[in-house]
């Protein structure tokens, strides 16, 4: 007796090919079309979607808010935020690399080529490159690599050298290696299986890069432990940095104040919205958990 309501939701969401007649648009609700949705390894999948061109304004470090289909019989009530993994403007495609965790990501995992997928974005404040930086160091672990990946493209476009330190449990789950290498980055992988991912060893690698003048800026995401390490080295050696943070979200647009995290700005604690003030923040201001 209740009516299906899903159709209504999307009337004002932009489909591929539709005319966008809203001049103030910064972000949008888009009905994208799934191109592929394949497993990268046992835990991660990569979903490629075709979208309306207004969604391609996205840049590295920004995110989209995804309306996940249900993996069972009841709705997934809230959207899930995902970093943009890759922007392919020529093919009008966006890519998201995601870890299959709970109901939301299990729902995304059910999508097949040709399915519609409602995504909202691009949202938030992403990575920025200072024109003075010649060489940057990117340090990521786990799902954080998905967020850092588009930095490789951004750096290449700006003629900036990249050393990417990719941390993972074991060699077979190191992700984004190809992407970084294709953009000319020097890739170092460190893994738990041979203890090379231990903080002490990563610190040695970073110190070496600083000494070699290969570290004009630090970028990280995905590990509180590695964030703390980079913060300390950055302070000691005066290396500026940026970090992408996570928090549970509701609106994704800056209105609801659900996604707050603590930052320390000029010695004072402040709360900032991860969705709009971030997800990328000044590394020294971030307060790790």
């Amino acid at each position: 007796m209740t009516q299906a309501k899903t159709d209504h939701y999307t009337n004002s969401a932009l489909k591929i090919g539709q005319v966008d007649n809203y001049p103030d648009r910064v972000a949008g609700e888009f009905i994208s079309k799934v191109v592929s949705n394949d497993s990268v390894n046992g835990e991660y999948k990569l979903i490629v979607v075709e979208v309306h061109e207004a969604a391609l304004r996205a840049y590295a470090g920004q995110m989209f808010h995804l309306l996940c289909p249900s993996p069972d019989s009841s709705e997934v009530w809230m959207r899930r935020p995902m970093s943009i993994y890759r922007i392919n403007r020529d093919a009008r495609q966006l890519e998201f690399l995601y870890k299959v965790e709970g109901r939301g990501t299990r729902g995304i995992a059910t999508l097949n080529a040709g399915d519609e997928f409602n995504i909202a974005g691009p949202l938030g404040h992403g990575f920025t490159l200072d024109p003075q930086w010649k060489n940057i160091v990117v340090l990521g672990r786990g799902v954080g690599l998905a967020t850092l990946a588009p930095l490789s493209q951004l750096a290449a476009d700006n003629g900036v050298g990249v050393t990417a330190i990719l941390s993972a449990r074991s060699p077979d789950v190191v992700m984004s290696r190809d992407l970084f290498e294709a953009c000319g980055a020097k890739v170092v992988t460190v893994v738990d299986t041979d203890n090379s991912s231990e903080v002490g060893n990563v610190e040695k690698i970073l110190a070496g890069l600083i000494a070699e003048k290969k570290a004009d800026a630090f970028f990280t995401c995905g590990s509180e432990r590695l964030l703390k390490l980079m913060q300390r080295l950055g302070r000691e050696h005066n290396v500026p940095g940026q970090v992408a943070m996570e928090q549970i979200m509701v609106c994704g647009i800056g209105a609801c104040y659900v996604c707050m995290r603590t930052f320390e700005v000029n010695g004072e604690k402040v709360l900032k919205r991860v969705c709009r003030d971030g997800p990328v923040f000044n590394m020294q201001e971030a307060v790790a958990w």
Partner: protein
Amino acid sequence: MVDLSVRIGDLTLQNPVTPASGSFSWEYNDVIDLNRLGALVAKTICREFRWGNPTPRMAETEAGIIQSIGLPGKGIEYFMEHIVPEYARFKPPLVVSCSADNIEDFAALAEELSKSDDVAVVEANISCPTRNLTGQNFAMHEGYTRDCIQAMREKTKKPLWVKLSPNAGDMVSVAMAAEEAGADCLVIANTFLSLKIRTDNFRPALGNKFGGLVSPALKPIVLRMVYQVAKAVKIPIIGIGGVTCAEDVVEYMLAGASAVGIGYAAFRNPTALVTIIEDLEKWCDARGIKKVSELIGAVKDDDMELDTLVAASKGV
């Protein structure tokens, strides 16, 4: 084409679809054209600076979310100087919701907000369940409500809207007290005080323990409240709770609401407000309804002895 405008006291809204306080900000202009909305509704502001509540501030439930934000904000001064101008760029009237711990602060907020020509309406959020750890608030009691609204009424000539709590046992009495005290409109309702406990670590799922439940599932409860209050007061009502489509707007109007507020639906679909306005227009046009305001209180409930399934089968 249907005339979608509705009157809330002396104020005319171009259509009955407004955002709900706390789930909206001028930043939504990134995604939708704010000039199409019935009104703009700012997040509840307090006199003082507030951190808001510890995270997590949201947890998913069986069919919706519980949230406990705790009214974070930089205080009324910052708001008047920096936030009001952000809204003033748009055409729909600005409703500013405010909250306080005591009557003096409520009155002071009413006075302060009234100084700006850009503020069209003062909304008294006397029903926020996340302001403190207990979930208690003025709107639970008719006496507190009367005193608070009277004090605010003395300090403002702007339209004064009062947001009520679904946690009150006798909302009709609270509503009548607000009307007597000089409210121009009743906003029904805020969120349902709720709790979620995690079965993995036995801890409350929210940092502030209790939260307000938000879910389309609650619409029948709030609709009942709107219906009951509409029979008891003369001032207009704005229905808020679980609106996700144009038919929901119609249902609230039939029950007696003059307009609706929308929160959850816009989280799920950032373009929901505009979609609902467009669908409402189509719904009315398809039925030859000339003015959407004809729907207000138009529920057919005068022959409730009759078996309505029989009635339906007879084409009534």
